[in-house]
């Protein structure tokens, strides 16, 4: 876990990719969950942020 945070701090690809992956996953979940309409409404922007972030952070050094 501490590796993860230090990875974020030092702009390491692994940790950031993990974070972006998480955001995408949350976005996709929000899109398709049957619980709250507001979550559905904001799912797209969440996924979009996650995806753009993924594209950016995948160019960070390993």
């Amino acid at each position: 876990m501490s590796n993860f945070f230090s990875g974020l701090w030092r702009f390491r690809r692994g940790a950031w990719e993990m974070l972006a992956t998480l955001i995408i996953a949350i976005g996709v979940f929000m899109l398709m969950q049957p619980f709250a309409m507001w979550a559905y409404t904001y799912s797209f922007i969440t996924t979009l942020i996650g995806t753009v972030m993924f594209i950016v952070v995948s160019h960070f050094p390993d």
Partner: protein
Amino acid sequence: MSLDPVEQVARATPVTVAKKIRGLSDRAIAWIFVGPTILLLLAINIFPLIWTINLSFTNYKANRPNRPVEYVGLRNYERILNDSDIWLNMQATAHFLVWTIVFQVLIGFTLAWLINKKFKGNDLWTTIIVLPMMLSPAVVGNFWTFFYQPQIGLFNYVVGFFTGADPSSFEMLGSVDLAPWAIVIVDTWMWTPFVMLICLAGLRSIPNYIYEAAAIDRASKWRQFWTITLPMVLPFLMLAVLFRGIENFKMFDLVVQLTGGGPGSTTELASINLKREAFEKWRTGYSSAFAIILFVTVFGLASIYVKALNKVKER
């Protein structure tokens, strides 16, 4: 060796050839090789994608070319993301996605595990099991509607035969309760082999000596399964799950042929509704926004997928 070799080469190499060879740097050659593909994809993927983004901010309708096109800002997105009917489509998609993945992973992994016992003739049976996934989903969907006919269909008959129920007492495709499962069953029939194949590759990528080492290390079979087999197949399983997830998120052909989204809108998956909006209602601008939403989702999932792919590749 009668000729002086230097002479020989000098004579054999025409000046123009030599110049040409020298003139093309590796980078230039690389672009010659890669360029056409990139161009094609730019023309048939990227340019249209940008166009779609542009359209998604308009009220354009492709069947009304003479109607003035107005930019409506984010209105299309707002409408889609506040439309509870489309939310229901997404939920139907989720139901389909989750259950197909659950069944396919469970059955697929079990099958792979059994096949990995290397019984006699396992190659032949594996090939047979793999057949459905290679078939055209539209045609598969089409003939499964035949099996699902309540009175004449094989499926109802077989279920009736084994459970004693009256085959015409339930309608797989027509009932609100059963239709979501009907499409799950067909997708599972069709795509379990996919998960199975990947799991099998995962299982086969575990070298025997790891199990031998575990046996020497006095791990029980049970412990071997949980601490070795499962963790080592996991990346492969992830790959299968992600790919099936992406595929089923954009599922169209199979379900269109099976239920067409019905009954009512019970099995109306996102793609099916998108097709209605785009190619039946011709609300091009609106459906472009819808398409972009699906695009981004799939693109996000695809990024994760490629990450998983590379992870497996490193094995």
